[in-house]
């Protein structure tokens, strides 16, 4: 018998062991749901999978009587567009600010303190300001996500840029490179995979700001729907929506990591 610390499960067992907690949670839920529904068939707190399926079928495949839209898909599309727009804007800003302040000591001296202070402002606290200034439309939601995520990305990229060995900068200069050439050819390509990593890390915060903004002011979106049906205690909609958001988050993260290793094979060095 090996010591526990030396026991590594085989890869097949690893998958099984990984799935086990999910199965246990599902079974516990099903038992709980069954028990409650047996006592009170109109109980809303723990709907059965059948009830959830019916509710989701209605939202996903039957046009809404009010707007004629397929509500579930419309919610997904609106939310993803907001998320991508917000995070995308944040990534562009974060990349530019991060590389420039990380590479040029003059810009670092003038902007790093400001960036630090901005990153300490709680984004949700300025949401009312955004609503007042920009209005209740799409722009304020996208702005909230962008403002919430950009400082993190900018500071991360700044640090990554500074981590690139100064030997490379000196070497490039001895090969005749100018400042813009060093920025564009040496620094920028090397922080691109770090940017994707930073985006992956900031997507969690991105979802948070998205759902918060949708909950407060919106007419569609995944977050809006969850907070809307809460009034009717529609757990049969809320639970599948939460699962769907989780799945989307997982897929986006997986996709970004796949893109990263496809586009930047040389970045594998740091991981091994």
């Amino acid at each position, binding site marked *: 018998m090996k010591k526990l610390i030396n026991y590594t499960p085989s890869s097949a067992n690893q998958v099984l062991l990984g799935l086990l907690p999910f199965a246990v949670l599902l079974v516990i839920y099903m038992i709980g749901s069954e028990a409650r529904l047996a006592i009170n068939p109109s109980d809303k707190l723990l709907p059965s999978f059948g009830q959830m399926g019916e509710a989701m079928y209605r939202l996903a495949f039957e046009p809404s009587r009010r707007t004629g839209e397929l509500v579930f898909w419309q919610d997904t599309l609106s939310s993803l567009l907001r998320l991508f727009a917000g995070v995308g804007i944040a990534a562009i800003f974060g990349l530019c600010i991060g590389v420039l302040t990380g590479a040029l000591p003059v810009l670092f001296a003038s902007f790093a303190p400001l960036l630090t202070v901005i990153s300490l402002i709680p984004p949700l606290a300025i949401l009312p300001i955004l609503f007042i200034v920009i209005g209740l439309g799409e722009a304020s939601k996208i702005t909230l996500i962008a403002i919430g995520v950009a400082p993190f990305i900018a500071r991360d990229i700044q640090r990554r840029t500074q981590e690139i060995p100064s*030997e490379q900068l000196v070497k*490039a200069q*001895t*090969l*005749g490179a100018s400042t*813009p050439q060093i920025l564009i*050819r040496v620094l920028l390509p090397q922080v691109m995979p770090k940017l994707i990593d930073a985006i992956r890390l900031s997507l969690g915060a991105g979802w948070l700001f998205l759902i918060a903004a949708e909950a407060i002011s919106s007419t569609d979106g995944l977050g809006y729907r969850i907070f809307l049906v809460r009034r009717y205690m529609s757990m049969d909609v809320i639970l599948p929506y939460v699962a769907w958001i989780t799945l989307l988050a997982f897929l986006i993260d997986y996709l970004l990591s796949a893109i990263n290793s496809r586009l930047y094979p*040389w970045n594998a*060095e740091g991981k091994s």
Partner: protein
Amino acid sequence: MSQPFIEARNIGKQYGQDIILENVTTTVEEGEFITLVGASGCGKSTFLKMILGTEQPSSGELLLNGEPMPNEPGPERGIVFQQYSVFPHMTVLENVVAAKGFQKASLTGYLFGNEKRQARQEAAEMLTQVGLSHALNRYPHELSGGMKQRLAIAQAVICKPRILLLDEPFGALDPGIRADMHRLILDLWRTHKLTIFMVTHDLKEGFYLGTRLWVFDKLRHDPHAPNAYGASITYDLPVDATQDSLYQEIDDQLRPTKSTTMTADLTERQT
């Protein structure tokens, strides 16, 4: 009298209270191959960085063709560091082509069309010369330490610098590979008529590579304030005139403790 290529006039360097170099005065002619040896912290790398332009002397003058040495790195002075000398996000060929591109005064240094084809061909020839023709499309992290240094050297030499600075370029390599690298660097030195400065920890290297050997050491030593006096060039020898006894003498001076521990190591391993 013709002007010396590089001239150091009474150079001193200090960081705060710590004096690194003092009274370094010497001249160098074009085409010399100088090896710099000395104990660690003796200022040989600092002197190299002054030629490179990343450090400036605190006192005295360092002249290139009678003009003050530029105070930032530039294309007439190539460098190969011990590590981090190549760009990890470019393949071997791209590394050298990029070096060609940087010579062009454009915003990005990207090359197109005919220029690009020509640069790629030139780069491939250079890489064949350093023995990397079989690895053109590999990334640096897929190369061995010796191959990386070959690439770094190819990159530096293709830009046709007048001065090539080598900062312990072979320090991390196996002895066998090091011998190959010596052959390569001597070869490039002759064909491209370079002036080479090479910092090394390996005194032997200094004794048969190149034309001139500088030993950096402290002339005065205060045991209570080890940093009160700076180092200077204590030996300036033409390489072919050196003898074994002198080698032993310098070796003992530079690292009396280290050489005894090394022999101890060896005997230990043999038993």
